[in-house]
């Protein structure tokens, strides 16, 4: 592999890694508070991409507006899922997980009759290429990095500097104690669902102009996000960010050298070894 190819893989890895980070952050946030894994995250990513397809490409609304709309719509969907699934089963982990799995298969399968069986494509939003360290990269892929960074920083500020963020951290530490201090646990859990869903929608909306769209498109990013949160430690936000960067880079470099399938298999073997020798991940608390 030449050094130019290496630089190119690294930059592309950074932009793919940013997408993975957006996916993993919502997952790890929801896990930290409710001890659930949102299996529907991949389906929400898919819906985020389809919002861009219809609102931006078909109806001609500006990309930024379509992007914000995707986050708002699916964020509202997240609150609805908390209200109609998580709350009625009284926070039972197993029923929630199974219901989220069923929601995933429902959204994926419904995608075929609703969106059609043919792959969809969204035309590029940002055209042209840029020269980065001597290699040319498409602006489309480069732009993912700052947009994702803005979202990550906003999430950080939201969690650490606002009252609602403080309520989220309180629930993460001790749900009962938070409730006793006057935190409305149901509403804040709903907010976590909304934030997680909105971030997944943002990831899908960013990838829409780059990859082809089909109802199953969310499966790969979801599995990648699983690997990242195991790598970074379940519930750890810095872990998710670092894990996302590492996996993005490995993924892009190994995939360029060997192909996408071996890259996935390699990361799976790596996770199994990690669980054997360092089960808490890079930043995790004791499991």
């Amino acid at each position, binding site marked *: 592999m030449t050094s130019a190819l290496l630089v190119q893989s690294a930059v592309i890895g950074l932009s793919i890694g940013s997408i993975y980070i957006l996916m993993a952050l919502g997952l790890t946030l929801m*896990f930290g508070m409710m001890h659930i894994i949102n299996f529907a995250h991949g389906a929400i990513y898919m819906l985020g991409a389809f919002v861009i397809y219809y609102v931006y490409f078909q109806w001609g609304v500006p990309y930024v507006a379509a992007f914000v709309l995707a986050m708002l719509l699916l964020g509202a969907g997240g609150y609805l899922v908390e209200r109609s699934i998580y709350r009625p089963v009284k926070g039972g982990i197993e029923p929630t997980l*199974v219901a989220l*799995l*069923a929601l995933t298969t429902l959204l994926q399968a419904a995608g075929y009759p609703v969106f059609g069986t043919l792959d969809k494509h969204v035309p590029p939003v940002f055209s042209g290429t840029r020269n980065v360290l001597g290699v040319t990269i498409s602006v489309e892929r480069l732009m993912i990095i700052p947009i994702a960074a803005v979202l990550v920083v906003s999430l950080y500020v939201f969690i650490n500097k606002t009252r609602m963020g403080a309520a989220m951290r309180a629930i993460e530490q001790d749900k009962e104690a938070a409730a006793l201090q006057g935190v409305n646990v149901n509403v804040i859990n709903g907010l976590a669902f909304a934030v997680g869903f909105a971030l997944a929608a943002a990831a899908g909306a960013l990838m829409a102009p780059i990859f082809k769209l089909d109802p199953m498109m969310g499966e790969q990013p979801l599995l990648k996000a699983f690997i990242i949160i195991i790598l970074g430690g379940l519930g750890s936000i810095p872990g998710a960010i670092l894990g996302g960067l590492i996996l993005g880079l490995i993924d892009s470099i190994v995939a360029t050298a060997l192909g996408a*399938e071996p890259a996935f298999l390699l990361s799976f073997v790596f996770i199994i070894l990690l*669980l054997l020798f360092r089960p808490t991940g890079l930043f995790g608390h004791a499991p």
Partner: protein
Amino acid sequence: MPRSAGTAAALIVVLALLLSLPFVGGDYYLYLFALVFTNIILSASLRPSLTCGQLNIGHSAFMCIGAYTSALLAKNLGVPFEVSLLCGAVLAAAVGLAIGYPSLRLRGVYFAMVTVAFVEAVRLIASIWVPLTRGNAGLSGVPKPTLLGTTLATRTSQYYLALFLMLVVLLVLYKLEHSRLGLIWKSIGMVDTLAQSLGVNVANYKLLAFSLGCFFAGVAGAFYAHFIRFLFPPEFGFLLATNILIYNFVGGRGHFAGPIVGAAFLSLLSEPFRGSPYETIFFSIVMLATILFLPGGLIMLPGKLAGLWRSASSTYAPSGHA
């Protein structure tokens, strides 16, 4: 075995009906029911793991391992069906041990995520190992099942083979569930820290429940391979794994019959649109409705209806101390 005479009588009637199906139904029904039996093996073999409180979302991967192992041994090396089936099941159980050992010692969600990723890993291996598996072109020409050197060429004989395999698997699983081992599994599922404090090696018993399930999923896969005679990697993906879980939850978690009822009910009802997105939509909606409105699953339905009937027919409302 079953406690009441009524249950025993019902079982005998069902068994007699199943045994006589070849005399009344055509090949289509034999084919359909053989697939239902395969689904019941898959569904019931997930139960030990679920009883321990482990959400295995990767059962189809072990079916896939059993199917390809048995098919390739029979097709390429001419291994007899009885042996190739056993090899497929043993390999599935061995892989289950290797995957379960690192992930079952941790919190349940780790295991759930690892199994989901494993389904994808196995599907990818089956798709890209083209020289062995023919990849996404599919593996065709798998030999028909044989028994003691005789090929089971007719649908009727294959139907009886499926029925026999299902009955053996169900009997073994039933005996295990009602043994000391089954009690330990149940105690782990209820409060694993308490079970541990009483001296139960929780991780090992979870591992045993999981790999036993993998073994029987391998049996189901091996039968499926020689019955359908064509293997296609995407069939063993996330969707099938989710369906096996759905059988268990829709049927009901509280009783041994739950996964059997769930698999039979859903596979028969979805038959008109098998393989289309509408099958998945139907399964998912039934699953969500079950979680929200009938958390005990279908096996709780008769009791619930009887309760409703009693309260409707009684002259006074049983209020206050319900």
